[in-house]
C-alpha cells in the first residue's frame, strides 16, 4: 500500500475524495517550484550553450538561404562520373572491406563479453562496471589512426596494422552500443531464467541473446559499414582503401572521380543496409 498522500486525507473525504487536494499534494510532493527552478536552470543552460555554439560555429542562416541556388552548379560538376579507374576502385573497396571485416570481427569478439560486464542490468560484478566503462572510453577516445601507428611499430606498415587499429578503436564503440541494447531489454524473462538457478552465461545465451540479437546485428553491421566508410585515416599506415581514394579525389578537386567513388560507397552502404535488414527479418 503506497500512499503519496496521507491516509487520513483519503479517509476524510470518504466517498468523494477531494481529487484536487490529491493533485495538489502530489505536486507539492514533487516539489513544484523547486523542480521548476531546477528544470529552467537546465533549460537556460542548454539554450545558452546552443547560442554560444552557434556563434562559435559562425552560423549564418541568411547567407545560407541566399546562396542555396548555387547548389545546382556544384552538383553539376560531379557529372559525368569517371569510370576509367573502376578496377582500381574495386580493389580498394575489397581491401577496405577486408580490413573492416577483420577489425570489426575482432572487435565483436571482445565487445560481447565487455558489454556483458558493463551493461548495468546484467553485469555480474557491479564494481567492475565502472573501471571497464573507463576502459571503453579510453578505446573510443583514442583514434584509429593512433592505434594504427602504435601497431606499425609492432607489425610494420600495411593493412594488418590498420586492421588492428580498427579493431581496438571499434571495440570501445561497439561495447558501448551493445551495452545500450542490453540495458534496454525487458528484465522479466531474464530474471525468470535466473530464478531457475541458471548462471549468468546460460541465462544470457537462453533469454538475452534471442531478444537482443537483431539489435546487436544491426549495430555490428552499422559499425562495419562505418569502418568501411572511414578508412581514410588508414592511409597513413599504407592501408588506404576506398576512403583514401575519396580523400585524394577531394583534395585534387577531381569531381568526376569523386562521383564514381561516392556511387560505389553508396552501393556498398546500401548493400550492407539491405543485408542487415534481411538478417534481422530472418530472425523474426
Amino acid at each position, binding site marked *: 500500500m503506497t500512499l503519496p498522500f496521507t491516509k487520513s486525507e483519503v479517509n476524510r473525504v470518504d466517498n468523494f475524495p477531494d481529487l484536487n487536494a490529491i493533485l495538489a499534494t502530489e505536486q507539492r510532493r514533487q516539489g513544484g517550484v523547486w523542480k521548476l527552478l531546477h528544470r529552467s536552470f537546465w533549460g537556460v543552460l542548454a539554450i545558452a550553450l546552443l547560442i554560444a555554439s552557434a556563434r562559435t560555429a559562425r552560423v549564418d542562416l541568411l547567407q545560407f538561404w541566399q546562396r542555396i541556388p548555387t547548389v545546382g552548379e556544384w552538383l553539376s560538376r560531379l557529372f559525368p562520373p569517371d569510370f576509367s579507374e573502376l578496377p582500381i576502385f574495386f580493389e580498394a573497396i575489397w581491401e577496405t572491406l577486408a580490413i573492416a571485416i577483420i577489425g570489426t570481427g575482432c572487435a565483436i569478439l571482445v565487445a560481447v563479453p565487455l558489454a556483458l560486464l558493463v551493461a548495468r542490468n546484467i553485469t555480474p560484478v557491479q564494481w567492475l562496471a565502472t573501471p571497464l566503462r573507463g576502459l571503453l572510453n579510453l578505446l573510443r577516445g583514442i583514434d584509429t589512426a593512433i592505434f594504427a601507428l602504435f601497431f606499425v611499430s609492432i607489425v610494420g606498415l600495411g593493412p594488418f596494422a590498420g586492421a588492428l587499429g580498427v579493431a581496438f578503436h571499434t571495440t570501445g564503440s561497439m561495447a558501448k552500443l551493445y551495452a545500450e541494447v542490453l540495458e534496454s531489454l525487458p528484465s*522479466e*524473462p531474464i530474471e*525468470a531464467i535466473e530464478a*531457475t538457478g541458471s548462471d549468468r*552465461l*546460460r541465462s544470457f545465451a537462453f533469454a538475452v541473446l534471442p*531478444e537482443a540479437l537483431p539489435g546487436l546485428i544491426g549495430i555490428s553491421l552499422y559499425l562495419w559499414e562505418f569502418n568501411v566508410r572511414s578508412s581514410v585515416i588508414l592511409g597513413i599506415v599504407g592501408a588506404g582503401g576506398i576512403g583514401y581514394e575519396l580523400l585524394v579525389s577531394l583534395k585534387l578537386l577531381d569531381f568526376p572521380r569523386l562521383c564514381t567513388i561516392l556511387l560505389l560507397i553508396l552501393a556498398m552502404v546500401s548493400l550492407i543496409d539491405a543485408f542487415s535488414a534481411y538478417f534481422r527479418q530472418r530472425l523474426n
Partner: protein
Amino acid sequence: MIVVENLTKSYQRGHFALQNLSFEIVPHTFTAILGASGSGKTTLLRCLLQLTQPDTGKIWFQGRNLNQCSALELRQARTQIAMVAQQFNLVRRRTALENCLGGCLPELPLWRCLTSQFPASLLREGLAALERVQLLEVAFQRADRLSGGQQQRVAIARALTQKARLILADEPVASLDPETAHVVLRLLRSLCDQEGITIICNLHQVELATQYSDRILGIQAGKLVLDVPTHQFSNSDNDIIYRTHLGSI
C-alpha cells in the same frame, strides 16, 4: 522445507508491502496463499526466491539461509525451487517447447544454450510437460504468439521441467478457463501427493483454494492475518482476508 522469519519488505518508505511475516512450510504439502489485489502475495513469493531483496527477516530453505548464502549456493537452492510468475515472463522469441527447457539450463553445456541445439531426451521431457498442461499442439509456436492462457501453461510446464522440490506458483490459473484450471490444479495436487513436491500457490478463487490446498495463508495489506489448515477454513476467515479491504472503498 522453507521457514520464513519476520520477513519485512517496503518499496517506499513508511509503506510496507510485507510486514513481519513468519511461517513454516512443511514438505510435501500444498499451501494456498489468499489475499486481495495488492496485498503482497507476489512480493512474498519473490522474496522467498530472493528475486526481491527483503528488508529484514530470514528465509531458510532446506536448512540454508538464503539471505546470507553465497551466489553459488543461492543458485543451487534456486535449482530446487521453480517459480511460475504472474506475468509468465516467457522468452518471447523462443518456442513454447524451448521455453520449457529454460527450466533445466544448469544441466546443459553452454554451446547448446547458444545454438539452441537441445538434446532429444530433454526435448522429450519438455514435450511431456507440455502434454500435461495440454499444449502439445502449440509446442513449436513462438511464445509471443500464444494466447494468454497458453502462455500461462507454458510457464507452468517450464516449472515442471525444472524438476524442483518446491514450486512457487503465482496465480497459475488466472488466465485459464474453469476446466483447464482444474486440470492444472489437479496436476499440481498430484505432484504434491505422488512425487512429494511442495507447492505454494497464490490464488484468487477461494473455492479452488479450499478444494486443492492443505493449508491456507491469508495476507492482508502485507500482514499475515490467517494461517489455517484448509479443512478448518470458514466463511468468517474469508471475511478476515478480504473484509477490511472492502471497508476502505
